[in-house]
């Protein structure tokens, strides 16, 4: 039935001609007549009472149109929403005002918004606002914040613990009693700044008369923005149009509702002027959500053959000063359900404490919860291997969920893995890296006194975030289905409307390939539309590697509805029954008689002229589908990292990096490889480069790109990739998702390699970031001993 295979063709991206010629259309490129610029004055203190805000001098400055403080906005807009509130977690959601009203709680908390004729003038005026603060005690680390007597951010949140989440399965205590080996380890997963190259921002334009708010913003999920904006501003959803077309990267940091978007929107409504607000990078570093920031205490029970029989995790997640939109879901559900990784661990218990501190709020960052879980379990595998003197690959194989055990329910029963063959990816990776030779090379290097290490990560992840019933059960305030409309035009051209909202993942191309596979329409005749809530049906957006697995499936099902209708119309035109025709390469012909054919264009025209329709068939070729899968997808793979550490400088250099991933069927291998490349770089960077550092006063020391180190072209070498294919049974294409795989896999792979390199010095564990200075300190101290 399928015209041509949608799989395996690396066609060039259709998005690119615009983007390589400077014709992209990002939020900052929006220009409207009468548009004003907004600058937000932000608190330089991490915790303070606002005693007084004097805007008089600022208001008198040239070009200034208006200045709003937190108090001015109270009646105009509700607090920034927290939309993921896990059940049974005793969650307390503190009020998060878009501009602080009485108290600022982190460096960067909004204090006043200035609108002026241009941004230079707005900044001049913001600098002239005189705010008197009465500073309060500050706490920045989650473990400190939980202690009795610690500074309290809110009276309503005792000990700053916003929630406590618990998940368990099996009998953990019994497992620890029978185990040959038990041990504890603390793992620190440091705070990161997402650094999408395009900062966050918005252009809000409220029209008098139509009373419609048009909001251009750089979001991963325009419908969620519209939904929440309506709730926060009382503007009916029917009167809000959110536009989010070219997005300069998201990595999770463009999921959450942004205070700036809300402020711009209500000020536009108040002034009846279009308002533009774009963060500059320094502002982005404090005002857009950060990622990770966990302290994880793990206890492991293992048998002497390497089998892990029990796992207890107590995690302390630093949520920052407020609970951002999706934030509580990240360290709870997204973290705990993949904690056993690719391994059949029958007894698992997790406790997660979400702690408020005087820092920028954290939320999703590429992988969101799953990198933390994968880092934990992959370090555990290496620790078990080390303590039992086994090869790390053997310990992994000993614990792998066997390929015939799928679907596989994790110990808590909270989720079931779709399909997998974990030995296969590991076999291939070992073959590519020539494992035996590599260990010999390592022996030789060690004999020469060099620090040379090999690290593995045989990760799994949960992707294709869905289904909606699970979302509801998890306390996620929305659905997780995805939508698509396939609209065939009378000329035979096709428009696809999709609820997903890519930020470079290439769905403008892969969705055309999918549709070409379903309907045989040439790719160049297909337009993929996203990012306009007035055009697209309700959809939940792009995150959690869900776009193709969920949104692509919706598209396939909508296309199949179109195809069925075209077969009916084609058969009618050919004067045979629908059972007597086949849909082939975009046309309909009589079975066994390819010359008795109606082309795609002929049928499309017939559907719209409707002169001659089969009985009971309505005019038009315009079908929609809302796809809600029965379960998630579970990509997996084996990554191997080889590092060598320069003892003198402490710098760890990646010598080789092999990645064998299984993301199910692959539509466009070039795009999939690109996702893996970028993901690996981002994960490696967490391990050796990136860290958001606060001082004890809550000042962000890594406050600009001069101090926060994101990878450069020279940071890492080429990656060697291969794939296996184990289709997912839960969606029509058998695909799993690939956006986060590289990031999730690579952090533990390199950290395991670094620890392996340092193991001749007696090192069993080393926390991130493995910066040159920290490695040197370790080497230096060992020498000293």
């Amino acid at each position, binding site marked *: 039935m399928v015209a041509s295979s949608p799989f395996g063709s690396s066609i060039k991206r259709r998005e690119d001609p615009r983007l390589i010629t400077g014709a992209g259309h990002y939020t900052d490129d929006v220009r409207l007549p009468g548009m004003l610029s907004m600058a937000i004055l932000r608190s*330089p203190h991490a915790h303070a009472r606002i005693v007084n805000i004097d805007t008089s001098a600022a208001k008198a400055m040239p070009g200034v149109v208006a200045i709003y403080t937190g108090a001015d906005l109270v009646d105009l807009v509700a607090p920034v929403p927290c939309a993921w509130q896990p059940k049974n977690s005793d969650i307390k959601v503190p009020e998060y005002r878009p501009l602080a009203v009485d108290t600022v709680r982190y460096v960067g908390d909004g204090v006043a918004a200035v609108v002026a004729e241009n941004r230079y003038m707005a900044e001049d005026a913001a600098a002239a606002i005189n705010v008197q603060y009465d500073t309060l005690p500050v706490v920045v680390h989650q473990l400190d914040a939980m202690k009795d007597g610690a500074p309290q951010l809110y009276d309503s949140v005792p000990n700053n613990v916003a929630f406590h989440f618990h998940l368990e399965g099996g009998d953990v205590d019994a497992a620890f009693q029978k185990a040959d080996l038990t041990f504890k380890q603390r793992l620190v997963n440091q705070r990161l700044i997402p650094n999408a190259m395009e900062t966050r921002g918005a252009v809000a334009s409220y029209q008098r008369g139509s009373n419609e708010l048009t909001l251009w913003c750089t979001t991963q999920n325009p419908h969620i923005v519209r939904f929440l904006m309506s709730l926060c501003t009382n503007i009916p959803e029917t009167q809000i149009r959110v536009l989010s077309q070219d997005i300069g990267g998201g990595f999770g940091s463009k999921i959450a509702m942004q205070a700036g978007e809300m402020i711009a929107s209500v000020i536009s409504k108040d002034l009846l002027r279009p308002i533009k607000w774009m963060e500059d990078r320094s502002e982005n570093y404090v005002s857009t959500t950060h990622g990770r920031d966990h302290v994880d205490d793990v206890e492991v029970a293992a048998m002497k053959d390497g089998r892990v029989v029990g796992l207890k995790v107590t995690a302390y997640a630093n949520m920052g000063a407020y609970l951002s939109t999706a934030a509580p879901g990240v360290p709870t559900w997204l973290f705990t359900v993949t904690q056993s990784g690719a391994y059949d661990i029958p007894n698992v218990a997790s406790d997660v404490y979400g702690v408020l501190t005087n820092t920028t709020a954290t939320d999703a960052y590429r992988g969101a919860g799953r990198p933390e879980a994968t880092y934990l379990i992959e370090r555990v595998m290496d620790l078990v291997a080390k303590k039992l003197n086994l090869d790390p690959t053997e310990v992994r194989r000993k614990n792998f969920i066997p390929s015939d055990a799928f679907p596989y329910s994790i110990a808590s029963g909270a989720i079931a893995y779709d399909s997998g063959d974990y030995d296969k990816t590991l076999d291939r990776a070992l073959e590519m890296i020539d494992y035996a030779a590599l260990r010999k090379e390592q022996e030789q290097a060690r004999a020469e006194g060099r620090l040379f290490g090999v690290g593995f990560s045989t990760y799994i992840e949960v992707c294709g975030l869905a289904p909606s019933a699970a979302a509801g059960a998890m306390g996620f305030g929305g659905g997780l289905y995805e939508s698509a409309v396939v609209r065939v035009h009378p000329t035979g051209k096709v428009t696809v409307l999709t609820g997903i909202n890519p930020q470079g993942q290439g769905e403008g191309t892969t969705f055309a390939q999918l549709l070409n596979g379903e309907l045989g329409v040439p790719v160049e005749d297909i337009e993929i539309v996203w990012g306009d809530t007035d055009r697209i049906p309700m959809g939940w957006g792009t995150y959690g590697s869900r776009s193709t697995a969920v949104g692509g499936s919706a598209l396939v099902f909508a296309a199949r509805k179109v195809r069925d209708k075209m077969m009916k119309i084609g058969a009618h035109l050919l004067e045979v029954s629908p059972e007597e025709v086949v849909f082939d390469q975009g046309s309909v012909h009589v079975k066994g008689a390819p010359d008795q054919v109606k082309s795609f264009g002929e049928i499309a025209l017939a559907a719209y002229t409707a002169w001659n329709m089969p009985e009971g068939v309505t005019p038009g070729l315009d079908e929609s589908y809302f796809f809600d899968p029965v379960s998630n997808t579970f990509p997996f793979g084996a990554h191997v990292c080889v590092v060598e550490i320069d003892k003198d400088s402490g710098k760890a250099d990646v010598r080789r990096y092999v990645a064998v991933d299984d993301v199910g069927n692959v539509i466009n291998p070039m795009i999939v490889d690109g996702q893996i490349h970028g993901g690996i770089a981002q994960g490696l960077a967490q391990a050796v480069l990136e860290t958001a550092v606060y001082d004890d006063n809550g000042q962000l020391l890594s*406050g600009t790109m001069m101090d926060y180190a994101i990878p450069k072209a020279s940071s890492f070498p080429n990656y060697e990739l291969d794939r296996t294919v184990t289709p997912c049974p839960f969606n029509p294409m058998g695909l799993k998702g690939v956006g986060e795989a590289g990031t999730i896999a690579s952090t533990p792979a390199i950290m395991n390699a670094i620890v392996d390199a340092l193991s001749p010095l007696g090192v069993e564990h080393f926390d991130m970031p493995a910066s040159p200075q920290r490695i040197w300190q370790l080497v230096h101290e060992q020498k000293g001993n």
Partner: protein
Amino acid sequence: MKITGKHTINAPRDQVWGRLIDPDSIAACLPGVETLDKVGDDEYSMAMNIGIGMVKGTYTGKVRLSNMNEPTDYQMYVEGSGRPGFIKGTGTVRLADGENSTTDIEYNGDVEVGGPVGAVAQRMLGGVANRMVGQFFGCVESKITGE
């Protein structure tokens, strides 16, 4: 940011003590002080011009001396804010008799630097702070010995 250090002044302890807690002496010796006015018991308002290269700014704020144990130790609280950001710090200054009627000064404090200057200039802040402290004690010494 922690600031700790030691300095030896070639003058006896009681003289040094007198200088260190004397507002006129502080105003005269602390680099960049433009005004220093008494606003309460051992509390002064202050305007200072501090520059790290081209990162220059005038900071206005206050200084408070407390827990004074003459001539052994006292605590100092400083806060100031200006266009490039703000500074706020507390520290303890300890004096002890050194050899040959010199005075050994030991200081340690914790200074918060916030706003744009804190995020950008942190690699230089330690250097600036130490330079200013050094200049201050050097100046105090020359004022005493020059008398």
